[in-house]
């Protein structure tokens, strides 16, 4: 029996793998995507675990998804609809809150309620952040320039970077370098006096990252979260109607319409390599497929530590892969509610309740949460990013009932129990204990939250690794710190989506520009693959 052969095979049907697949299939390559789960989507999924409710089990909001890609692949035609949400709030222990209002005037008045000077501080803060966003955004859909390479394209990209950087001027460039390396805590302390406002804004600097608010590099993580937009409203976040799985579903339909084939239900056993070149894949179920181009949507650690024989890879590369930081730092609760919980502090029907809600009230508290994590425990007072999308999206829960998504930080992958740190310490008992710790803190905003819960799914970093395949449950496929960004992402010398194995490419968020359901790594990688296949012109260059 002959082995089925393709022009290209992609391992993993996450949103980046699907994006790469769309572009390869549209360029005329016979493309196969293989997926270990029975469903597609990776961490961008909508699943029903309790009758009548739909959860965005993993990733839960989107803004970073590049609109250039959405438009180019015509994803709205396949049902994708992104709906922005308005504002957010942090609730305090003394029954007050700071609300982030979408209306500019209201926001100023709300800040003034906590600190009149911080109204001016906020204007400065947002100007600085937005300037940095303007600087970095053009690089998202470009190849990261490699300063060690003399390849004309790298020189061209480097020139683009230098020109952009030069345009900032000496003072602003200095600020930029500071911004990229400093901590979000220091950055906020420089601007604001209100602890509550600082705590509200700091969340974006630590989400998905194994660092504390005073760890260097966290200011950039905030930037990464602000880079997105919904229809040009920079920094705005939104829901995908029907849950995050709608993104994957639309990408899957676009891929299949372009002639691509998806096989679910069996993961990869190994990438097949011959004479330093990839020749295909072998699946766990025994199927083998041939292809001269193979792309991995898995993170770089999982790809090379589990599925490529190290004999094919230079030691330096293996070392770089092994030291790649991809620590799990967050858990997730998905909750079905019998009705909207009471928020005694908030005005009735306040629009900001439709946004992201928090209960961490100071940077010191957030830093203590990180200390717990370093010791292998979940934070005794966890930070969470919680939303009730069903207030806006009628498809997520029965009428009058609600769905709540709670992103919890910090929670370690290798939980400490009795002096031993191990992923195996995540049991039903520890899961329940984590959930109870989160509910205790949530009562600060919603005293009746426990009575509202009909069903809850608790996902630890271990669960995320086991189901989605993200090493240690790291949501970004590798931390977003300066040592592993741009030309150092995923590892030095391989920022062009290639690997030491000829024909094997990395298309997931381990690659530039990183995670956040942007689909940029997938699109950038597709461009590189097509360029090498002599089909570089078949894909649009997105305007910078």
């Amino acid at each position, binding site marked *: 029996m002959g082995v089925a052969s393709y022009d290209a095979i992609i391992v993993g049907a996450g949103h980046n793998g699907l994006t790469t697949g769309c572009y390869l299939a549209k360029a005329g390559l016979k493309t196969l995507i293989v997926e270990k789960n029975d469903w597609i989507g990776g961490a961008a999924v909508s699943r029903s675990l309790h009758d009548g409710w739909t959860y965005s089990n993993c990733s839960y909001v989107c803004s970073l998804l590049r609109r250039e890609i959405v438009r180019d692949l015509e994803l709205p035609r396949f049902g994708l609809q992104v709906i922005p949400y308005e504002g957010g709030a942090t609730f305090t222990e003394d029954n007050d809150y700071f609300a982030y209002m979408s209306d500019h005037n209201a926001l100023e008045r709300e800040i003034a309620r906590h600190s009149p000077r911080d109204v001016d501080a906020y204007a400065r803060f947002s100007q600085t952040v937005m300037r940095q966003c303007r600087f970095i955004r053009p690089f998202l859909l470009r190849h990261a320039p490699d300063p060690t390479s003399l390849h004309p394209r790298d020189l061209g990209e480097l020139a683009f970077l230098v020109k952009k950087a030069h345009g900032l001027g000496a003072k602003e460039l200095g600020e930029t370098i500071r911004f990229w390396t400093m901590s979000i805590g220091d950055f906020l302390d420089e601007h604001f006096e209100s602890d509550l406002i600082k705590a509200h804004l700091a969340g974006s600097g630590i989400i998905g990252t194994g660092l504390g608010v005073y760890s260097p590099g966290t200011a950039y993580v905030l930037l990464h979260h602000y880079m997105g937009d919904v229809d040009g409203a920079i920094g705005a976040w939104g829901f995908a109607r029907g849950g995050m799985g709608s993104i994957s579903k639309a990408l899957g339909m676009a891929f299949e319409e372009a002639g691509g084939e998806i096989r679910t239900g069996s993961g990869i056993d190994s990438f097949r390599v011959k004479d330093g070149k990839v020749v295909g894949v072998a699946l766990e179920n025994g199927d083998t497929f041939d292809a001269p181009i193979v792309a991995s949507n898995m993170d770089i650690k999982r790809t090379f530590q589990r599925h490529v024989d190290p004999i094919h890879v230079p030691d330096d590369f293996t070392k770089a892969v092994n030291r790649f930081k991809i620590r799990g730092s967050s858990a997730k609760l998905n909750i079905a509610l019998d009705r909207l919980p009471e928020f005694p502090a908030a005005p009735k029907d306040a629009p900001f309740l439709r946004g992201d809600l928090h209960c961490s009230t100071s940077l010191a508290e957030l830093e203590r949460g990180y200390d717990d994590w370093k010791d292998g425990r979940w934070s005794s007072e966890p930070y969470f990013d919680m939303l009730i999308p069903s207030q*806006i999206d009628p498809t997520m829960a029965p009428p009058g009932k609600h769905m709540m998504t709670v992103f919890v930080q910090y929670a370690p992958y290798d939980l400490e129990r009795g002096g031993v740190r191990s992923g195996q310490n995540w049991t039903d008992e520890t899961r329940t204990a984590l959930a109870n710790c989160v509910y205790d803190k949530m009562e600060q905003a919603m005293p009746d939250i426990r009575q509202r819960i009909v069903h809850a799914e608790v996902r630890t970093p271990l669960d995320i690794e086991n189901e989605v395949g993200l090493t240690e449950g790291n949501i970004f496929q590798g931390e977003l710190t300066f040592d592993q960004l741009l030309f150092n992402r995923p590892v030095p010398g391989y920022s062009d989506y290639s690997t030491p194995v000829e024909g094997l490419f990395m298309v997931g968020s381990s690659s530039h520009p990183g995670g956040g359901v942007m689909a940029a790594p997938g699109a950038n990688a597709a461009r590189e693959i097509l360029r090498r296949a002599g089909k570089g012109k078949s894909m649009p260059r997105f305007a910078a």
Partner: protein
Amino acid sequence: MTHEAVPIGLIPGPFHPRLEALSRAKGWMDWAGYMSPSVLDTAEFEYFAIRNQATLFDISPMHKYRITGPDALAMINRVVTRDVSRIGDGRVGYVMWCDEEGMLIDDGTLFRFSETDFRLCCQERMFLWLLDAAWGFDVTVTDESDAVAAVALQGPTAYSVLRDAGLDVGQMKPFDWHEVETDLWISRTGFTGDLGYEIWVPWDAALPLWDRLWAAGNHWGLRAIGFDALHIARIEAGFIAAGMDFQPVHAAMRLHRGRTPIELGFGRMVHFDKGHFNGRRALLKQRDGGQRYALVKIDLGGFKPAQDALIYHRKREVGHVTSGVWSPTTKRNIALAELKAPYGISRTDDLMAEIYVNQEGRWDRRLVSVTIQDKPFFINARARTTPPAAF
């Protein structure tokens, strides 16, 4: 005896007490002399409610004319370009009417109660034109503009809102029009291209209707919206607006501003085989001799809305954008544009739009590609499914 002075400026419409209570943004505009919301809260979120939840928009300021009598059908068929005899009882039709030169006077919706009883809804004041056209016909024309209140309920959960309000419209197909309760008529029509209905009641029954819908909408994300949100949705749906995409010929001061239905892309709405109607000879001549302009749907490069942008074929100016927005649902830069023939008809390549962007005190000029589209930008099966889904 002295007469009380007529009010100056804008007056409240039938739903105004409810709209005013919901108005956080305090954005009001003039619609036929009524205070109509341009935005109540945030245009962006109001827009997304049209495409994701359900919305209420007060359309009472529309002009409404009742045409009754034995010759009603014949008289209307003499006025409008399409064959109204093909519109059944309990149905609604989109209609256009022209002057003797074939220039569009206005467009609107025609509601047929029976062969002898119609209601025409439109943007422009049309009482005198209809009275003139009624000469020689056994019909009565009544201006119902201030007697009938109406609200548009649009969005994917619109059907669920009506059902929870106790109004059964499950079997109504697009363009159906029924008296669901005494003096409460519902049409499955709208200006958004989405699932939606328009609900018609006597002027003084407006507030109870609003309250009933509002209570039912609680679980379905119902929001009240203003014109700004609707504007985006109607361009996505490819609908034209009087005063923007065409200049109603009776209202235009300058000569040569008139456009024919054919030039606006509605040749299919002109039924030459139905006998004489206003403008028929001129339109026949244009059909055979060729049109002067073409209003087209275009997709533009870049992300900057193209309102009023000039359009070029290589270096030659060939037209301009009449309505342009960034489409948040389709994630495209879309517009309606008027091109001078043969551009937009036989010559559709190499078109560019010149968009000006104000960058904090400095205007930047962007030249972007223009691609002509033949279908509406927003198309969703839920708009036509019968019975509609819950969302």
